[in-house]
Each structure stands twice: as structure tokens, then as C-alpha cells.
């Protein structure tokens, strides 16, 4: 199974929060030419930390569940793949 290499770090959260604030507090004029591609890039940077955190938590939770299941099934191998 894949093992996430890194989890969320404090500076990520601070950076994302500052950026989110800056973006949401600054409304550019609606008639300005907008490149949604740029927005999507920045948005990914904003949510990357949160999604990584959720992914990591889910990963370890799945492992924990599998471990507990193995514990109570007399060590029979759990052949279910938790990542579809």
C-alpha cells in the first residue's frame, strides 16, 4: 500500500490561511479579464494541505481498522484492498 510521504505542517496552514484571506478580502473589479486557470492553480495550493491531511488521516484510519480486524480474526490475512 502507498504510504503518504508527508503530512500537513504548521507553516502550510498559516500560509494557506493568509492567502485565503488575501484572496477573499480582495474583490477585483468584475469586468476585469479573469483567467480561471490561474484561480484554479491558486485554489489547489489553498486546499492541498487540507486534502493531504484528510487523505493521511483516512489512510492511517484504514490501516488501524485493518489491524484491529486482523487482531480479531486469528491473524487471517485481510485481502481487501482499502484503496479502490
Amino acid at each position, binding site marked *: 500500500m*502507498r504510504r*503518504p*510521504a*508527508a503530512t500537513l505542517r504548521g507553516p502550510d496552514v498559516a500560509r494557506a490561511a493568509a492567502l485565503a484571506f488575501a*484572496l*477573499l478580502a*480582495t*474583490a*477585483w473589479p468584475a469586468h*476585469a*479579464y*479573469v*483567467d*480561471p*486557470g*490561474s*484561480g*484554479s*492553480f*491558486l*485554489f*489547489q*495550493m*489553498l*486546499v*492541498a*494541505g*487540507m*486534502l*493531504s491531511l*484528510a*487523505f*493521511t488521516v*483516512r489512510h492511517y484510519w484504514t490501516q488501524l481498522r485493518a489491524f484491529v480486524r486482523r487482531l480479531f480474526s486469528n491473524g487471517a490475512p485481510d485481502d481487501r484492498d482499502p484503496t*479502490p
Partner: protein
Amino acid sequence: MTAIPHPSSFRDPAGFLYNRGDRLLRQVNREYAEDLEHLRSSGLLDESAAAGLTLRHEEVALADRSDDRGCAVFEPTRLSFVAYPYEWCPGQLRDAGLATIALQRRALARGMTLKDATAYNVQFHEGRPVHIDLLSFARVRAGRPWVAYRQYCQHFVAPLALARYRDPRLLRLLTVHLDGVPLDVASRLLPARTWLRPSLFVHIHAHALVSSRVADGAADGRARVRGTALVALADSLERCVRSLAWRPPAGVWRDYTSERSYSDAALSSKRSSVERWLARGAYRSVLDAGANVGEFSRLAAGAAERVLSVDADYASVETLYRSLDEPGRARILPLVADLASPSPALGWNGSEREPLLERLRSDVVLALALVHHLVLTAGAPVEAVVALLARLGTEAVVEYVPMDDPQARRLLRNRDSYHAYDRSRFEAALRTRYSIAEVAPVGDSSRVLYRLAPAGSAA
């Protein structure tokens, strides 16, 4: 000899499709050489084809290239039909979205990423969604966000959320938005409660909000994400799309059978006539026009390799799509289309996406309980309906439903002006385009089935 690129294959400078004789080939340009090498050497090319996620591409001689920009030439497996996302039911769009994100996950595991995530890169081949564009893979550039994230949301997440939380008929928006439903439009159309669904809050509402507030070029070279975040993003999108299944209202099949205005004996006589007629010719392709939940499409799948099962009703098409299993799944392609207003030529130069009527043409068209529908609901004279059928099928099996049939009477309620027909006008209309080869009663009902051969033929 320089070939003319296929009308839908012009955006990507990495290569293009073209015809050489009756073969369809894909030239890979030199600028894609390193990506192609990685695609091969990482095993991703073979692995994704073996998993059924990508269409198999056979490498052919470089001498077959269109021009000297080419460094490799591939011949993709021929598709039996090209359908566009605006002709899919929600279940098909969802499966195409899941296949795309599965491919992105495999690509990430091999150091590559999808550089585009348009639903037009997916086709249904032998009943399964496959990615058809060999050139969609690019090597991951460290720190770079997923370039196709917004496109994936527009092509899959937004329309699926609209179908699931508003109405499946909103998938028709894809006909006007060829690059997917704009996220701000989707955000405004979705009900307020979708702001409380974390995945839709992130991928649609917040995504639209942030995108609309960022000026052009604001992120150039600055936005950076880690590799694990790309995996997490793909994982989140997969969960999101998986949760966006649209269930047709219960009882679609029940409605279909209860609306039938004739006896079981009549139905079984209709079935046996259709079955006998389809078995007599070696038909390759059948179009079941107005297929409803596909009862006769299944019958046709026993006789022909490819059956297009077309209906305008999303619930019927979704019900059929969900119920298909092998071997019918590999042969029947359910599609949502209104024959009274078929999808037109669309896209660049009006030739990027072919009109539906030019794609539907089959050896036989089944028009069972269809003609009266088009006459009474679309207001078309019976001669115009027969002319349409003649565009769709070389041969035809057509059911005559008289005006006093309970189903016709139901459609006639509140209508006082329409192109009425009787049996002699109906037959005269058939003879303008076909010759009547066989006539069979539909059991004890007043309906009649016609087997029609090409005009002037002796069959």
C-alpha cells in the same frame, strides 16, 4: 505525404489523428518524444491498456507518419461508435469520470499526470469507458498543481452534481459548454444544501469563488503543491464523483409495462416477429430508435454486433445502462437523444463534433411505437418521420400505431390540430422511401409491424 488532421484533433501540439486510406492513425510529434519514452518505459502505456482504462494503440511504421514532425505513429483500436458526453446518461458520465481519475492515479504512481481531463477523451468501447488519447500523459513537474483540475471539475463534477441535486436534464448544458459546465454557473444552479457537502463545497463552490477573484496570471509560476497533494486531490475527486450517482425514480420499468396498451400475447407476437426478422439478415448494426428501457435492444443484441439504444428520457436510458450485463453490455450502447432535435455539429469550425444523425446510421433501424410519438408530440407529418428513418437505417422495422390506440389517444389529449394518418397514408409514406417486404399483425391488437427493405429491392 502530409495528411489532413481529423477535425477534432488540432489542439494538442504533441500530435494528431489523421486518415491514411481507411485507417485512422495518430502521429506523435517530436516535442512529445520524451513523454512518450517515459510512458513506455514506466510501463504505464501497457499497464493502463491491460487494465482496460485506455484504448489499445498499435505502433506502426514511422513511414506512415503524416509529416516530418512525427517521431512515432500509432494505430488506435477502431471504435464502433463515437458518442459525446452530451449524449450520455448520468451513469455513463460518472463511469467516464471514475475511469479518468483512476487513470490519473495510475499516472501519478508512474511519475506522470493527465495534462487534460476532458470527457471527450473517453469513449464507450465494448461497454466500458476507455481513455482514447495517447497524448494526454505528461511527466510530473515537481511542485506544479494539476493542470487539468478545473477541467475535470467542469466536465465531470459539476454536471454530475447538477444531475444528482437538481435534474439530469441539466446534462444538456454540455451541448452549449463544450469545455464543461463553468463552475460559477454550476455553483449558482446547485441548491444551497450542496454548500454543506464538503466535496462539493471544495470542488465547486469554493473553487468557483476563488477562481472568479483571481486575475489573469496571478498564479504563474507561483502556485506549488507537493506530490502527495496531487494524490490526495485525485482521491478526493474520486470520492466526490463516486458519491454523485443519480438514481432514476423507482418504477421506470413498471411505468413502461403499465403504459403498454396491448396484451401480453400481442407483446410476445411483436417480440417474435422482430426476432425472426433480425435473424434473417447478417446485420452488423442496429439502431433502436425510441428504445425506452431497451427491451428490444436486448433482442437485437442477439443478432447484431452493435446496437445503439436511443431514447430522449434520462430515466429510461439510465435504467437500461444500469441493468446491462455481459454480453449485452459489450454490444448495446444506450444514448440520450431526442430524435425530434438531434445534437448538431458543434465546436471549432462546426466540424469538431459530428451531428448525431450522421453517426447513427445503421443497417437496420427499429422504430417500435415511435412514429405516432413523433407525429403527435413533435408535430411532424408521417412522411417526414419516414424520411428521417430512411436517413437512419438502410432497412427498417416499423410499427404502425393507429390513432385510436389508447397510447395515441393519451398523447392526443388537449390537441386539436395534428397530422392525422390512417393505415393507407402510413403505408404510402413508407413506400416513398422503402419497399414493404413483410407485414405482421401485433397479436390481437390493431397495431401492425412492417419489415422494410431499401426502395426498389426485391428483399
